[in-house]
């Protein structure tokens, strides 16, 4: 992936974001929102959508202006680009999905600090043309969305006995799962599961690294 002008298949880029370099389960970046906003499927989905949009737009913008950015000031430049698109997302969500925004407006603003977005701008978009960057952003965003939804699925089902706010089971739920502790349990176990799938079926060596 590091070779700048290599031909890369677009489907491969999307697949890479969903599984091989899944932001949460494989690269272990941006674990903070994965724990903080996934007490329900709906919140996780909305957060994932916002990140998907920001990631794609940041990747495209960075790729377009990559030749005009001096290497010494590249990180502040990326931060400006990210902050621009986060503001766009923030204001649009505040205008059109008010009930969701009321619950997680604070976390939308925090997308500026998400490690995965900056890391993709730095690692991929600054070295590739616009189209591959677009697909890389799409893959990463979908991978993030997928991870948040699957964590939210388990946490909401076990913690509240409901899905997307609708009650599913009527038994006494495991209250701990909607607390932050449950978020760590869910992320840890799912990460282990993904590692196991990778080692068992794809011969990988397991995920490494970490971030917030």
């Amino acid at each position, binding site marked *: 992936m590091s070779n700048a002008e290599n031909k890369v298949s677009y489907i491969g880029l999307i697949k890479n974001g969903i599984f091989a370099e899944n932001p949460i389960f494989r690269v272990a970046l941006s674990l903070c929102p994965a724990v903080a906003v996934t007490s329900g499927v709906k919140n996780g989905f909305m957060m994932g959508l916002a990140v998907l949009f920001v990631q794609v737009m940041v990747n495209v913008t960075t790729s377009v202006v990559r030749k005009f950015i001096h290497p010494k000031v590249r990180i502040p430049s990326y931060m400006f680009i990210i902050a621009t698109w986060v503001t766009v997302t923030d204001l649009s969500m505040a205008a059109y999905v008010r009930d969701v925004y009321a619950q997680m407006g604070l976390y939308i603003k925090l997308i500026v600090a998400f490690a995965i977005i900056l890391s993709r701008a730095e690692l991929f978009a600054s070295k590739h043309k616009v189209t591959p960057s677009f697909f890389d952003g799409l893959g990463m965003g979908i991978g993030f969305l997928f991870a948040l939804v699957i964590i939210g699925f388990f946490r909401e089902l076990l913690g509240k006995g409901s899905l997307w706010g609708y009650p599913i089971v009527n038994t*006494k739920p*495991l*209250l*701990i*799962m909607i*607390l932050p*502790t449950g978020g760590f*349990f869910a992320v840890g*176990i799912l990460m*282990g599961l993904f590692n196991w799938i990778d080692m068992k079926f794809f011969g990988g060596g397991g995920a490494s690294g970490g971030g917030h």
Partner: protein
Amino acid sequence: MADIKKEHELLVSVSPHIKSEETTSRIMWTVNLSLFPALLMGLYFFGPKALFITALCIISALLSERIFQKVLKKKPTVNDGSAFLTGLLLGMNLPPSLWSFNPFMIHVPIIGSVIAIVITKQFFGGLGYNIFNPALIGRAFLLISFPKAMTIWTTPTAAFFALDAKTTATPLGILKEEGIGKLIEAFGDKVNLYTQLLIGHRAGSIGETSVIALLIGAAFLLYKRYITWHIPFSFLGTAALLAWVFGGKNLETGKMLLFAGDPIVHLLSGGLILGAFFMATDYVTCPTVRKGQIVFGIGCGALTMLIRIKGGYPEGVMFAILLMNCFAPLIDRAMKSNVFGAVKEKKK
């Protein structure tokens, strides 16, 4: 032939050459045995439902260990007694009313055991690699997940087949909500309060109430040298000291009264004895250095009293031990003994 025989005689194996009879499984089963008196007292006071809960915990702990190791094709270690001990300790830490509160709550002890064995112990690599005490994590998980069912306590009946016991608060609950005066009133007089707490005729978890039975088991372990005095005594000493200094309360104003607490009530109630002798001393999750063990015990005692006096829960032994478990590796590193004869590196 003679040559080969001679060669055999000279064969030197790797040390150790003399092995003691103590093995992990032997120690584990001895600890199980030493918990038996307290368990019997719990069964005597709380009846068949206590037996049912404890048995359920033990069986599900053994089964989850067996199934996990079967699925991951690991060497089975069910017979070493550690899973049995986890189940037993978890059962002894659950309220006896868990079952009579709602017969459909049967899944609660099972969930606790599975969390304790699979997540706390096996996910970290099995016995010897776990960071936290498995039984305590199981209980913490249950307390947070089922806050109502886990905090309903019943009066001890001492009549084996009385199924419908009255619900009541634990001595620590009364102490926290209504003060020492109310507690003495509930038990008659002060001497009666102490004796009842000592024998274990009070509301509480199945295995924690009978201090005398727990002390018999603890004395046996100390005699066999399976545990040392460092952790339990520094734990209990710190707790008693802090209870005496900060435990008092001015009944009229509700403000803290220094040096007026009752350390004996604090020592005899709650899970302090069970926690100090049987759970804080878990080999895997406590520091190995003796100096460090004293620090560990002091930390446990201080955190326990902090939660009991200032925290939201009436009892804090469980969270105190779990918090100190996190520090065990750090304490070990800070307190490691110097190599004999080695010179300390000079600071540059």
